[in-house]
């Protein structure tokens, strides 16, 4: 037997904010000890399996379920005929229609793969088999398969997304050098390692849900509203999450189905959404197309940007994938015009997927800048530096911090950009054409209030408690680091409890807003706990500090002592024993003083009402990055291999550089997948995504990923968050695909403007 050397968690100093600690829960995950939502042992489970539509548009005329119902083990069959008695839940902003019933198994079908029925049986296998006995009659109507369907048309303009300043068309017409091109991105999916699903259990009118979640309080409220329950009656538990990437922020139709079944049966129900069903149980990134026109002087000074974008949405909801999100803020430009459309097609309503908006937007503008550089005969790095935005030209506001210049120059230095031979197709090794490309990225700083609780126990251990979640990004670890620093207690004495809607509320783990928000709340709470502890030590009748005459004490390394060093010094458990205190509990939040009421608090933890955008204050606040990619394209086969990448980031202060670097690399890897492989293949006849499994929908393997060098050029930004960090999770993917596409152009002289860069487009 071999025993693995236990991994060192870093030195003591690493315990504070900024230390390179390894993830606390990492070992549990790799050894299988971490219990994910669907693994919770719940007794007497029944198993639900979903049935999804196989047509894109029309209605369910009837479902003959007699045979299925009679099949062995079957307990219940739910179809559009069943009134589940649910009411519509609030939207993201906390708005809720009055008295609007909600049918998670709709009769009207608006996309292929929509959930229309469920079979619940003693075993999953029995349910799967019984589904084959359902006779579903459809009344099919013509549908629109996707953005490329000739029937899709141009869609409608989203007025709130139109942006303009100066006179872009006139400036364009007057420009010495112009380019115009259309860029496209396909449907892309989250494909988190952990598929969706839940276990729902009722005890009277108390409902417990075990479900992976990016936002426990909001999802608990979703269930409460569906079932007309007081919010406190629903408890949602999400201790570990196997990746979300934007897909696990709200309760979904299948959850309503499982919880309804559990209530009807009076038994806990587990529902595992199959991998193919994950492709349509919630929306991935919408397919997009955008036209970009750039005008510049002969020496490369940008004069105008004209952007026209469109993204597909469902026929029920206008969800724009904002292809104009990064376009206005990357460069200095005095004349700008942007308009965005949504094109309804028969798809599940698209959703947020890592770097929403910014990602396809950067693909457009960053490829366009490369085309302009090529037309000008200019180094694309020089073109970017030349048009460096000294402020936010859209709002006129100054940047809070913007180290993009440093990202470009330091990234270029590390990459060896100066050795680039600029002519396309001028670098090769045998039959491998080599190309180098740049792509910049950005993601806004979004702030939201959060709450936290700190408990100091009699044994000296400290608990940090929050309903925030950890989906691998490192919440458990950075909160221990934050509390350690603010409280003066070593990290190994701190336990972090997360992922339960019964715990204090928090920002969503989305839009890169969680770390900045929740560290702020924990820092505030820990500081308050420390003050209370010191207050007790100074004032408690039996405290040895009472008579020292000190007016404050210091807490460091888990010991409390007189700051001058003359006087008692004791460990926390010793103090707790001396003063006869069994526990000290402190809860704080970062809501303003005038919003401390229950209604305001609940709204803050369950809606976007209190979320602050990047330009709501004096400054314009964003994370920034510059990616440098090297590709090798086989001249004969058109296969693209990314052989090297250097990426430099400005994300402000890093709470734990090791975990930040992992998040950046994760984003870059996802970007490589987006650049080279990922594409939902839609059958034009019935709107079905036919590669709805991980055998056919390709994501990168280890063999596809070279060494990824990441560099931090950020400085603390105290406007962006309490501790000075900006978001790190989303920005990593933004700009990767254009860096690779630009490198492919440099290698081959061939400009591919629609992702992914598969070999058929390059041979």
């Amino acid at each position: 037997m071999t025993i693995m050397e236990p991994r060192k968690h870093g030195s003591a100093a690493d315990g504070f904010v900024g230390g390179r600690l390894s993830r606390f829960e990492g070992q549990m995950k790799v050894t299988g000890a971490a219990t994910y939502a669907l693994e919770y042992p719940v007794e007497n489970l029944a198993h639900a399996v979903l049935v999804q539509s196989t047509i894109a548009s029309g209605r369910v005329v009837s479902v003959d379920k007699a045979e299925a119902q009679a099949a062995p083990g079957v307990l219940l069959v739910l179809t559009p005929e069943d009134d589940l008695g649910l009411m519509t839940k609030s939207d993201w902003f906390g708005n809720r229609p009055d008295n609007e019933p909600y049918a998670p198994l709709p009769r009207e079908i608006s996309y292929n793969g929509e959930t229309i029925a469920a079979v619940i049986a003693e075993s999953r296998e029995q349910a799967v088999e019984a589904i084959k006995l359902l006779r579903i009659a459809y009344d099919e109507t013509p549908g629109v398969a996707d953005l490329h369907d000739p029937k899709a048309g141009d869609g409608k303009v989203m007025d709130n997304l139109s942006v303009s300043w100066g006179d872009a068309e006139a400036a364009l017409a007057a420009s010495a050098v112009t380019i115009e091109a259309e860029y496209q991105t396909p449907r892309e999916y989250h494909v988190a390692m952990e598929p969706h699903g839940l276990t729902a259990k009722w005890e009277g009118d108390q409902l417990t849900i075990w479900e992976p979640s990016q936002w426990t309080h909001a999802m608990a409220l979703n269930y409460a509203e569906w079932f007309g329950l007081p919010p406190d009656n629903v408890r949602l538990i999400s201790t570990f999450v196997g990746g979300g990437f934007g897909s696990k922020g709200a309760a979904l139709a299948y959850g309503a189905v499982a919880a309804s079944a559990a209530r009807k049966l009076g038994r806990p129900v587990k529902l595992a959404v199959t991998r193919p069903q994950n492709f349509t149980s919630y929306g991935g990134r919408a397919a997009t197309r955008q036209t970009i026109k750039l005008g510049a002087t002969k020496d490369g000074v940008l004069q105008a940007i004209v952007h026209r974008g469109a993204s597909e949405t469902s026929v029920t909801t206008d969800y724009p994938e904002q292809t104009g999100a990064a376009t206005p803020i990357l460069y200095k430009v005095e004349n700008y015009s942007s308009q965005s459309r949504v094109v309804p097609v028969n798809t599940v309503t698209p959703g947020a997927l890592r770097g929403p908006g910014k990602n396809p937007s950067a693909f457009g503008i960053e490829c366009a800048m490369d085309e302009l550089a090529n037309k000008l005969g200019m180094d694309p790095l020089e073109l970017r530096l030349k048009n460096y935005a000294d402020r936010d030209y859209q709002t006129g506001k100054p940047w809070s911090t913007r180290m993009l210049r440093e990202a470009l120059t330091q990234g270029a230095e590390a990459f060896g950009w100066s050795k680039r031979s600029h002519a396309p197709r001028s670098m090769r090794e045998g039959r491998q054409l080599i190309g180098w490309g740049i792509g910049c990225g950005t993601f806004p700083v979004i702030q939201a209030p959060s709450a936290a609780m700190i408990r100091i126990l009699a044994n000296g251990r400290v608990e940090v408690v929050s309903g925030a979640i950890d989906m691998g990004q490192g919440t458990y670890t950075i909160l221990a680091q934050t509390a350690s620093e603010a409280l003066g207690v070593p990290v190994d004495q701190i336990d972090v409890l997360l992922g339960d809607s019964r715990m204090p509320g928090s920002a969503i783990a989305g839009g890169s807003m969680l770390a900045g928000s929740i560290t702020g709340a924990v820092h505030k709470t820990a500081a308050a706990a420390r003050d209370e502890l010191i207050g007790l030590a100074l004032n408690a009748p039996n405290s040895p500090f009472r008579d020292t005459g000190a007016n404050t004490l210091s807490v460091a390394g888990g010991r409390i002592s007189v700051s001058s060093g003359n006087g008692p010094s004791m460990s926390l458990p010793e103090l707790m024993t001396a003063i006869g205190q069994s526990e000290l509990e402190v809860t704080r939040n970062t809501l303003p003083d005038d919003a401390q009421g229950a209604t305001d608090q609940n709204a803050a933890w369950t809606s976007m009402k209190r979320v602050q955008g990047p330009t709501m204050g004096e400054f314009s606040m964003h994370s920034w990055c510059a990616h440098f990619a090297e590709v090798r394209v086989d001249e004969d086969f058109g296969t693209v291999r990314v052989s090297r990448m250097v990426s430099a980031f400005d994300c402000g202060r890093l709470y734990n550089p090791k975990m930040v670097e992992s998040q950046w690399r994760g984003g870059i890897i996802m970007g490589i997948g987006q650049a080279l492989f990922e594409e939902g293949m839609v059958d034009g006849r019935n709107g079905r995504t036919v590669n709805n499994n991980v055998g056919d929908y390709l994501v990168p393997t280890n063999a596809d990923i070279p060494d990824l060098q990441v560099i931090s050029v950020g400085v603390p930004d105290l406007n962006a968050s309490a501790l000075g960090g900006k978001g790190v999770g989303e920005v990593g993917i933004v700009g990767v695909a254009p860096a690779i596409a630009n490198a492919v152009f440099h290698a081959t002289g061939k400009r591919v403007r629609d992702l992914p860069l598969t070999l058929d487009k390059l041979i």
Partner: protein
Amino acid sequence: MRDFSYSRAGSLDEARQATLAPGALLLAGGTTLLDLAKCGVTEPETVIDITHLAGLDAITVDEEGIAIGALARMSAVADHPGVQAALPAVTQSLSLAASAQLRNMATIGGNLLQRTRCSYFRDPATFPACNKRNPGSGCSAIGGVTRNHAVLGTSEQCIASYPGDMAIALVAFDAVLDLGTRQVPVEDFFLSYADAPEEETVLKPGEMILAVKLRNSAAGMRSTYLKVRDRQSYEFAAASAAVGLEFEDDGRTVKDIRVALGGVASKPWRARAVEQALVGKPLEADTVAWAARLAMDGAVSYSDNLYKIELAPRVVTRAILTVGGLA
């Protein structure tokens, strides 16, 4: 739940007897069988486990050639130095297939009998029409997404491609399958399913693959398997080529050449026209590129897979030039 019976065959004869029952299927590594059962394509009544049958996993290499038992694991064959020396193309075709985990489970017999990756074939709940699953029901792929479908040996009945890698190398080197009662060349074992897509091989109930046999050859020793795909690992071939070459004594005139294609045809595809065009000629890049195009004679595309007609000859060319020392 769909019940099926599971039994472990006590002997070869027992296993062969058991396959005579309707709905009976052998279980080797299970990586194809379970996969297809999960998609609802295969619904066996009886599963006969043969994994423990003794002697069927042997790999023997001698002066005559190689014999690989049907139960030998893909990884065991890929790691075998004797196979590598005699037929590098076979080794490479295995190590470039699937993933390490699958190769550790999967057997050579099962590998030959893997089935097409046609998405329509694999989704019976949504696409009832599939001539391969349900003869006469039509073909859902035609008119749909056909990026991975075949361009050679297809018909209006079915355009699915044979997905495996090893069989391409086997067909190039005239491998023979030992079915116990008869010996069948691999090339004849697979049927191009032009007219009857549901019939994929000549294997009959009561028969079993016992071993794959290959004869040593100079072309075999100088061989390669080139697999081209978008992802660097764990993906089926967009196009692949197994190639072997023997020169005359002058070191440049082609004496013997073997060419087979994967990822583009309804069955492992021997490209005899390419071979014949090159035998007796000096190996030169231009001649090879011209000859490789002959592999695509009669190719039919359904737009999404048009690129294969361009790609496959390039893969053949590179593979030949590689073994010829010209690439």
